[in-house]
């Protein structure tokens, strides 16, 4: 056991006091969205009650306070990521999805020509697929997929062939369906050797493993606040200062300009260029509190905790159900996170989730926005259970109890 105490986190998390169907909530859907601690909720509340104002260009006291909270959150995120260039590399977006679109439509549209290849993987979330398909339509790029092997890991055996013509490798740090943790550092080396850049979809990996950008030699990173104990409506796009400086604007509007005349406009410099319109200010207050909270827990301890839970759950699911409950993902806890995609023999994932709800257990049925991956394994859907900092082995107990009912009911 690490020194990290999930029970403290539970006390901090108001949602875990919810009672559903007469049972305390067994929240196993952190891969979809995590439960924010009170400190995050209060940061938002306090912002709206005491410091709310639009940011930038404000001179009055509360506008300065709002700006300090907003820019303080940016600095907090830069610290959390250990970003080599500090705050000037942190762009606030509205989520991983917007961050990936920003990457495709700003950097991608400016730097990729017809025939250039973007290499993604078969286990990507749609957020790291559809924007590239859209760029294919407008700019004629090629989108190529790294296959996923039977072991639920990237099959890199043909990587040299795959890299032909590749200008950007864009992969998820950790699969939101399989739990697979990808070898990002190795992929970064390969990409750079081939003169390509590398983007990481960090929606899961930043939240559950942490990311040290000064140690990891990547070029772009995207993630969401709501998956890391923060609020909805905010995300981050990170890239190195030199790259950011050359990226053309994405969305147009107030804030992202230096000048607008009737005959044209001049974009602003720095992260501002990509933050058109009133930014997510209260959300930044919440995200700032979330990264402080995560830092207080320690990302390593948190990852170790989830690894332990996963190892325990993998073992017990195998023991209890004798093959009737299959986990779609790596069977060993090494190099995988706390995401358990369940395939219950003879029971549709929708029904699994429905039965589990009767026990207050929250799992998510569906394709988890990863249809190419589901197709690869011949599945329409899975029932996905996923852990967070507040998860306990007791959650696995209830999961197993409820799964037992599902198996029994459907005989």
């Amino acid at each position: 056991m690490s020194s990290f105490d999930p029970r403290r986190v539970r006390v901090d998390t108001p949602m875990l006091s919810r009672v559903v169907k007469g049972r305390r909530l067994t929240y196993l859907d952190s891969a979809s969205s995590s439960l924010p601690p009170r400190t995050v909720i209060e940061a938002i509340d306090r912002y709206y009650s005491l410091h709310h104002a639009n940011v930038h260009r404000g001179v009055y006291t509360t506008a300065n306070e709002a700006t300090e909270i907003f820019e303080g959150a940016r600095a907090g995120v830069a610290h959390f990521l250990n970003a080599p260039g500090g705050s000037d590399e942190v762009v606030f977006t509205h989520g991983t999805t917007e961050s990936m679109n920003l990457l495709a439509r700003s950097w991608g549209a400016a730097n990729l020509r017809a025939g250039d290849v973007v290499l993604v993987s078969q286990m990507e979330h749609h957020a790291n697929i559809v924007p590239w398909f859209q760029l294919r339509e407008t700019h004629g790029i090629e989108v190529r997929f790294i296959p996923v092997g039977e072991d639920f890991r990237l099959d890199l055996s043909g990587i040299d062939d795959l890299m032909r013509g590749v200008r950007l490798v864009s992969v998820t740090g950790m699969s939101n369906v399989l739990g697979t943790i990808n070898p990002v550092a190795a992929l970064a080396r390969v990409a750079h050797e081939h003169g390509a850049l590398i983007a990481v979809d960090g929606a899961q990996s930043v939240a559950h493993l942490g990311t040290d950008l000064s140690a990891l030699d990547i070029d772009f990173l995207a993630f969401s606040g709501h998956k890391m104990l923060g609020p909805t409506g905010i995300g981050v796009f990170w890239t190195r200062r030199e790259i950011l400086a050359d990226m053309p604007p994405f969305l147009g509007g107030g804030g992202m300009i230096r000048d607008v005349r009737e005959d044209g406009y001049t974009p602003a410099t720095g992260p501002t260029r990509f933050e058109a319109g009133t930014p997510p200010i209260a959300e930044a207050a919440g995200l700032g509190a979330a990264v402080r909270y995560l830092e207080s827990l320690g990302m390593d301890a948190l990852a170790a905790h989830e690894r332990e839970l996963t190892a325990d759950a993998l073992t017990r699911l195998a023991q209890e159900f004798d093959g009737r409950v299959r986990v779609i993902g790596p069977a060993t806890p090494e190099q995988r996170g706390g995401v358990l995609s369940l395939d219950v023999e003879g029971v549709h994932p929708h029904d699994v989730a429905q039965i589990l709800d009767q026990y207050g257990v929250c799992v998510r049925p569906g394709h988890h926005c990863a249809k190419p991956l589901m197709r690869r394994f011949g599945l329409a859907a899975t029932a996905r259970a996923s852990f967070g900092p507040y998860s306990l082995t007791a959650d696995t107990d209830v999961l197993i109890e409820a799964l037992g009912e599902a198996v029994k009911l459907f005989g």
Partner: protein
Amino acid sequence: MNNLDDLYREIILDHYRSPRNRGELESPSARVEGFNPLCGDEIVIYLRVEDGVISDVKMTGHGCSISQASSSMMSTAIKGKTLEQAHRVIDRFKEMMTLKERSLDEAEEPSEPDLRSLGELAALAGVVKFPVRIKCATLSWNTLAQALDEVESAP
């Protein structure tokens, strides 16, 4: 676990495990696809209509027990029926499924006469207590309604 039993009646599980009228029809009078974007359920209905009578019906697709059982039970309920009769079954079934909208706070059991006229299908009445599942139960019915439209508007 009273609630679960309301949803997963034995007859529903039976239709789920052994769906009736699975398969495709060659040169059907109508072939219509249905899709529930929320949970990914898919259905394809093939109808053969001769002299105003649904002489054969087949279905493919995948989905949860409710959507699969509902479509299976539907197929037995409409096979051999006139288009007119099929429309009436659809109406009565959808009426049963919209009870929730009538008594929003608490889904009541439908009154007896409704249920009797629906036969086996009455087993799906418990679905109204699970509002998210209503779409699962009605997918095949909406798709059927479309198929009937297609047949009726064919030249």
